């Protein structure tokens, strides 16, 4: 309260205080009470005040009379109407205390760490008997650490895996369907892409041919982001859904000024969210068939070659992309992401974590997601990758399977995924949450077009990475052979054809 403490304020405070106490008492009594507070309407009316003043004048004597006129002062005061309604809910069944779950996760920094912490705080309240030892591991070390721990037999009870490692470690993972059924969990509440589109085997990231191994946790999808301020400053119209690759190239030319180290595009090295979707949108794909293991690679079709050439040539022929060797000149102290420098007009990549990009951009400029430009064939393509929580056989040894199902289903559930929607560090994997205003609504510093993330993820043009045993080696070969083109050492066409040959040699050993 500001200003002097008046009698009116004291009375009001006492009233609100007693109101709160009443509500608490009534709630403790278990009865539902609706408390209404009368609205006090006050209106201030200026009071005319007459002051008597004696003036020593010989002939003129003026007498002023002070007269206080009591008037009704009406003041409009808004008082929040407090309606307390207690809803009786069935408390979650508390299981017997178990050994702590060894819970390995890589949401160990930034927005994601805050989300994990907040979620687990609520979990502790709802399930006080389910104990866990959270083992947060930095993302850069997580994969190797889990691999080594699997090899050593010391892996945690619950780990985060992608579809590739799910298949490698499947004999060491617990099949979840029976446990999910026993816990009464309705999988339809969650977003599991292989259930959304069972006809596409590439989307099996949490199950193997319908056998469930993983609980949903997070997902990723590609798209483009663009620098609104740079577009405005350079007089370029905002991207629209009918943009093509040609439109994008033309815009990139207008956004590029080599003298000031400003570029229309930044085409990085990673294929998953950058050039592979372009290949997939132009008549190529990862493999020739959606079978496991795939018989041959499918990215070096004529359309795929055209797409990869477009991607590489944008930098080295058109000059609208940042050459890799000059990237360090763009970056300054504290800014390690090219797009966050504000000197890049558009950038393809994963758009699933705007919370992280918001931190990197740090409010230096306005940015947003943009519709993916269409290929010469008129198509677009979106690469998705779901990660799940998997329960390992160590949980069987420790007797923590049931508890682990409770933990992982809580994380997949509406409360935790709602926190994910707030922090926007990943795509929330709950059906209600991904369609809610909580996720799609505007937050300062975040892109306005959050709907594009959801639309890409759930698009019929979305595909998975078609994981199989031996996929990791195929992926490394693909990137090893294509990188020389992306750094400008060899022509794009030559690099992609080399990649096709090397990848197919590896795939032949898996048949």
């Amino acid at each position, binding site marked *: 309260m500001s200003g002097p403490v008046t009698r009116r304020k004291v009375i009001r405070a006492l009233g609100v205080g007693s109101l709160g106490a009443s509500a608490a008492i009534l709630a403790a009594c278990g009865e539902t009470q609706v408390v209404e507070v009368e609205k006090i309407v006050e209106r201030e009316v200026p009071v005319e005040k007459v002051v008597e003043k004696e003036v020593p004048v010989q002939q003129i004597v003026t007498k002023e009379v002070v007269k206080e006129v009591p008037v009704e002062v009406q003041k409009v005061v808004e008082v929040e109407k407090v309606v307390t309604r207690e809803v009786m809910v069935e408390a979650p069944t508390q299981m017997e205390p178990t050994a702590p779950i060894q819970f390995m996760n890589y949401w160990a920094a930034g927005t994601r760490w805050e989300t994990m912490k907040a979620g687990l705080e609520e979990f502790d309240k709802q399930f006080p008997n389910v104990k866990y030892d959270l083992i947060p591991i930095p993302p850069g070390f997580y994969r190797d650490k889990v*691999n*080594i721990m699997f090899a050593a037999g010391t892996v945690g009870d619950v780990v985060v895996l992608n579809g590739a490692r799910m298949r490698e470690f499947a004999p060491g993972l617990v099949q979840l369907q029976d446990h999910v059924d026993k816990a009464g969990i309705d999988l339809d509440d969650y977003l599991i892409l292989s259930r959304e589109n069972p006809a596409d085997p590439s989307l099996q990231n949490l199950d193997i041919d319908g056998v469930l191994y993983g609980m949903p946790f997070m997902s990723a999808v590609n798209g483009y982001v663009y620098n609104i301020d740079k577009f405005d400053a350079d007089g370029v119209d905002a991207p629209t859904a009918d943009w093509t690759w040609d439109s994008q190239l033309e815009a990139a030319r207008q956004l590029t000024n080599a003298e000031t180290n400003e570029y229309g595009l930044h085409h990085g090295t990673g294929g998953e969210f950058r050039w592979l979707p372009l290949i997939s949108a132009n008549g190529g794909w990862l493999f020739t068939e959606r079978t496991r293991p795939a018989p041959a690679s499918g990215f070096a079709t004529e359309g795929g070659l055209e797409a990869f050439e477009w991607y590489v040539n944008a930098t080295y022929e058109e000059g609208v992309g940042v050459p*890799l060797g000059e990237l360090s*000149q763009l970056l300054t102290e504290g800014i390690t992401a090219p797009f966050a420098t504000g000197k890049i007009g558009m950038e393809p990549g994963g758009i699933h974590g705007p919370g992280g990009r918001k931190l990197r951009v740090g409010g230096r400029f306005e940015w947003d997601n943009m519709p993916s430009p269409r290929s010469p064939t008129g198509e677009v393509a979106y690469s998705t990758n779901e990660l799940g929580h998997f329960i390992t056989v160590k949980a069987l040894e420790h007797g923590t399977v049931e508890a682990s199902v409770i933990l992982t289903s809580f994380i997949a559930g509406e409360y935790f995924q709602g926190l994910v929607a707030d922090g926007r560090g990943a795509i929330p994997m709950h059906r209600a949450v991904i369609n809610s205003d909580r996720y799609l609504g505007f937050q300062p510093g975040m892109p306005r077009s959050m709907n594009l993330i959801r639309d890409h993820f759930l698009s019929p043009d979305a595909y998975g990475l078609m994981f199989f045993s031996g996929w990791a080696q195929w992926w*490394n070969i693909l990137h*090893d052979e294509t990188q*020389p083109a992306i750094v400008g*050492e060899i022509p794009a066409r030559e690099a992609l054809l080399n990649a096709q040959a090397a990848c197919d040699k590896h795939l032949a050993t898996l048949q």
Partner: protein
Amino acid sequence: MRTTRWQRWSGLLFIAPWLITFLWFTLGPFVASIFLSFTNYRFIGLPEWVGADNYVRLFTDDAKFIRSIINTLYYTAVHVPGIMVMAFFVAILLNQKVKGQPIYRTAFYLPSVTAGVATAYLWILLLQPNGLVNQFLGLVGIDGPNWLTSSTWAMPALILMSFWGLGTTMIIYLAALQGIPQHLYEAASVDGAGVIRKMWHVTVPMMTPAIFLTAVLQIIGSWQVFTQALIVTNGGPRDSTLFILLHLYRTGFEYFQMGYASAIAWVLFVIILVFTVLQFGIARRWVYYEGASER
């Protein structure tokens, strides 16, 4: 003197802690890996015997393995003589009685005790196109390359980085220098030898045991380069810095082919063993041990 049974058993008892640890953590995995190298073990499930298939595949159907051998040979051929020569001259400099000598010795030795990962990240910054290395080259009119993104210059970048850790070799040479009897230099002076002749005919011969030791250690170490290759270049660009140990690690822990990775490990062991045996074999011709000629 014949030992009693009790003396024998008490000796074993004293070395038992080390022996048990050695058997459990060294010899055991050693023997297990020999077995696994003849299987297709993927560390989930049971290993399946495949005979010598892994070894055949290594030399006939694994281009990356052959490339890793060539890369490691390249690194060894440049790094080992380079670091030995540099460490030798630095040791000679640090053996001079100058003001601040302990500070100089500390400064040269400190990098070799710095954590490998931290060193690697530091050198990533130094080797950027506009990093300190290229800035220094620019001072002398040389336009430095894109060290870490060029398949030509990535390996020289790692070799350059390796010279920063010459401290360990330098310390060994420094100790050896201080063990050279002064009367030898005096006798050489009497015979009219200058600085260069003294170095060639007194210092170097007297240091041959230390040189031999460091040659053996450096060759063994260069065949086991891993941290720098993983952190700085991750084997790229285009496998130009794919070392054999990195290839082994990827095969085992990224591709889950533990049996095949075990075979790579044994081939590496044999390569290092061959180099070491060769060095010991030719050491008799050039290493001078004081007092050895009387035998």
